[in-house]
């Protein structure tokens, strides 16, 4: 059930009416029932997968908490009779038990994700390398499996690290995993952040409803007016790569950057807006990423919950694991302190970016995309001293024009890497980027080239205006909530904005017959 479908809007309306009609203590149960109905709509058999992850994670976390409680009680009881060494041994034995539960659960769930998502990728590589004819399995991927698996595993690791105790109520935990607005494309929530507002009773509050609906409408605007309109041009450009080289690849980079931003942030706006309507607060996933001045900053501001997930649950554990510490020691001995200390950091970073790429999709395009991100980050860090010298020598730091240069540089660099998303394979992606420098066809842009991409002049006009509105809202958001600012305006102004927003979605939105309305790009991950 796509967020932009009529059936979803009907589903949402019914859920909203029921939510504030049922007794408050039953609200979370209604959300659970609604979430499972929503999930079942994608295929009733997929419920088995999300149930497996839910039950296995809930049970394992509960067992881990039991062991931790048992340990605390035992140590308290035998505080006087145990020496330091005994305590250490006891703790180690208990840790081993919790670790067993944690690893078993992770293996089961990540294994399930890996089998469903990556089997055909592995088979295609085996067939390619060994010229075998292994049959593809063509497993259907359960809705949002990458998102809910990562969210559940994050919870499990937090419980394992004794950050908070496990949720005792299986149904409540099931809601955390399946909460319908976020199950398909995130944000990847943390249990301790989400559980507070997810389970607590909510009264009908004007502010939540109003702000939530505003956010939903804003998401619809970005998705339907901008992203789905640009999709037409992007599809035309990438479906005929031989025809569209040189300057057209620049267009692909630019158009796809805007499309992906409008699509993904639009989807997250709708998600957060829906949650707010139900009184639930979800984590923000973006912080004006296109204003980033370097790639590290960009990744702190784009898909924030995914970035922090990889940092907390992959990067840190790898960085401090025993074999990495040994490697660190060894590399310091071999390469010296300066270089040696970077080896484990860069190795952990490489692993993070490899898995990030793999998480995005089972193809070499995404793996290369991840590794290119890693490469740019490493080069940027290695060149840091050089940049510092340059900044000091020419006093450019903080200057508006230099900030603009850095922002544009990051935008185009990220855009160039990102086109691995859209072309069918890695060599083609590189060839296309290379053609920017080898194909001199800039004049085609002004000779009607852009009018052959399936968009009309009014479409481009809508896109320019839509992008400007998006930019203006983004700029306004730098100094505080745009909705707060709007709420402070006089009633006629405020309502005129609502009117214009709703009408522009309904009139200019690329939906219905005549438009190839796409699903959200991140639904596929």
């Amino acid at each position, binding site marked *: 059930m796509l967020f932009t479908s009529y059936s979803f809007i009907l589903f949402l309306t019914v859920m909203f009416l029921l939510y504030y009609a049922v007794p408050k203590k039953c609200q979370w149960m209604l959300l659970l029932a609604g979430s499972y109905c929503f999930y079942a709509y994608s295929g009733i058999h997929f419920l088995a997968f999300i149930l497996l992850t839910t039950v296995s994670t809930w049970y394992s976390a509960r067992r881990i908490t039991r062991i931790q409680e048992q340990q605390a009680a035992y140590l308290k009881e035998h505080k006087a009779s145990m020496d330091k060494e005994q305590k250490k041994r006891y703790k180690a034995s208990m840790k081993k038990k919790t670790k067993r539960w944690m690893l078993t659960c992770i293996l089961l769930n990540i294994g399930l994700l890996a089998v469903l998502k990556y089997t055909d990728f592995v088979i295609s590589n085996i067939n390619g390398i060994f010229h075998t004819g292994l049959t593809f399995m063509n497993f259907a991927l359960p809705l949002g499996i990458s998102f809910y698996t990562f969210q559940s595993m994050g919870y499990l690791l937090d419980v394992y690290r004794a950050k908070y105790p496990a949720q005792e109520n299986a149904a409540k935990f099931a809601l955390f995993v399946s909460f319908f607005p976020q199950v398909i494309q995130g944000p990847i929530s943390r249990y301790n952040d989400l559980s507070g507002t997810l389970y607590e009773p909510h009264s009908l509050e004007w502010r939540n409803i109003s702000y939530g609906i505003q956010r939903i409408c804003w998401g619809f605007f970005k998705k339907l007016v901008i992203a789905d309109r640009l999709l037409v041009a992007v599809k035309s450009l990438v479906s005929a790569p031989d025809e569209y080289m040189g300057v057209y690849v620049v267009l692909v980079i630019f158009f796809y950057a805007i499309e992906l931003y409008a699509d993904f942030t639009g989807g997250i706006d709708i998600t957060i807006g829906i949650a707010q309507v139900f009184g639930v607060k979800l984590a923000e996933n973006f912080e004006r990423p296109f204003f980033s001045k370097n790639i590290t900053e960009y990744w702190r501001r784009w898909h924030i919950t995914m970035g922090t997930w990889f940092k907390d649950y992959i990067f840190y554990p790898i960085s401090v694991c025993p074999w990495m510490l040994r490697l660190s020691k060894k590399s310091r001995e071999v390469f010296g302190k300066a270089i040696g200390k970077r080896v484990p950091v860069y190795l952990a970073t490489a692993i993070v970016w490899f898995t990030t790429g793999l998480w995005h999709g089972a193809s070499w395009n995404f793996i290369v995309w991840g590794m290119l991100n890693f490469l740019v980050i490493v080069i940027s860090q290695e060149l840091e001293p050089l940049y510092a010298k340059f900044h000091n020598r020419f006093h450019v730091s903080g200057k508006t024009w230099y900030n603009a240069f850095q922002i544009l540089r990051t935008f185009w660099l990220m855009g160039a890497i990102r086109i691995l998303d859209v072309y069918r394979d890695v060599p083609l992606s590189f060839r296309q980027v290379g053609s920017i420098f080898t194909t001199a066809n800039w004049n085609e842009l002004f000779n009607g080239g852009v009018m052959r991409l399936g968009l*009309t002049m*009014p479409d481009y006009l809508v896109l320019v205006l839509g992008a400007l509105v998006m930019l203006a809202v983004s700029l306004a958001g730098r100094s505080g909530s745009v909705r707060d600012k709007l709420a402070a305006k006089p*009633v006629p102004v405020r309502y005129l904005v*609502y009117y214009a927003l*709703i*009408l522009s979605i309904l009139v200019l939105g*690329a939906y219905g017959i005549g438009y190839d309305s796409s699903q959200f790009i991140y639904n596929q991950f």
Partner: protein
Amino acid sequence: MKKKRVIALLLLICLLIGSLWFLQRLFMPKYVDEIFEGRLIEEYYENAGGNDVMFIGDCEVYENFSPITLWEEYGITSYIRGSSQQLIWQSYYLMEETLQYETPDVMVFNVLSMKFDEPQNEAYNRMTLDNMKWSMSKWNSIKASMTEAENALSYLFPFLRYHSRWSDISTEDFTYLFRQEKVFHQGYLMRVDVRPVTTYPAATPLPDYQFGETAYEYLDKMVALCKEKGIPLVLIKAPSIYPYWYDEWEEQIEAYAKEHDLLYINFLELIDEVGIDFNTDTYDNGLHLNLSGAEKLSRYLGGILRETYGLTDHRSEPETAAKWQEKVNFYYEMKADQYRELEEYGYLKSYGGRKPEE
């Protein structure tokens, strides 16, 4: 504060509903340029009631029969409820709807649409369904007609379908925002131009000649409905030589008519008897008849209907005659306009529906 907020919200909702209503009217196709067929269905409501004969079907009725001729020759009042590629379930629901407005003495159904057993084309669906008045018949017709890509909601709120026309709005959309000019003659679309038949179609073999279950289901429903209302149902096959009418199809219709004791007339077998000359009586190489052909065919059918069903001659009824005289006048005006256009331009420029721009 709360009261102010509620008032502002209500105003916003009213303003949105008003704007959407206006934009829906603006964006909906006006069918004033060539594709007049999109307006066939809506013209009926101004002319509903008092018809002896009701024709139901696709272009093979609204382009091949002239109700004005039936009136002039026999004093029979009639109307054609037809539209482009009108599928059999659409015909059934239009028949059902028509019976809410009037009870004709005879119902005539053209059987070509028996060849379709599944929804076909959104554009044709729209021409048939968009301008039907709201009723259960319309809703059922929508449900039966929708192709996979369509959504029933966009029939309830056509704005959802036509919003993408925002960039194609022309002056005509404003001119015909709240008014339409009359184009049809009791559901008949007049064409006086001539394009003779040059080749006769060959029968391309089909994998299966059997009419589908759905088509039969709706034909059964038509029979049952007419029986319930006590209206004789006449099945016809118009004398259009395209698309090809197969012998296997003919056999099925003949058998069905015999089984249900229905009168069935295949005009393809009566071309000489009717007097149709495909050198002069068609405007598109034999797909449809022109005015000359339609008048001949109507004259012939009128004779059968009068004799078989004893239809009353209304020409001696002053009120009916006066009403029909207006229709006759409009018919001859358009006929003269079309001949004038042919003479002036060599082709039909406005089809008489609107005066050509000077």
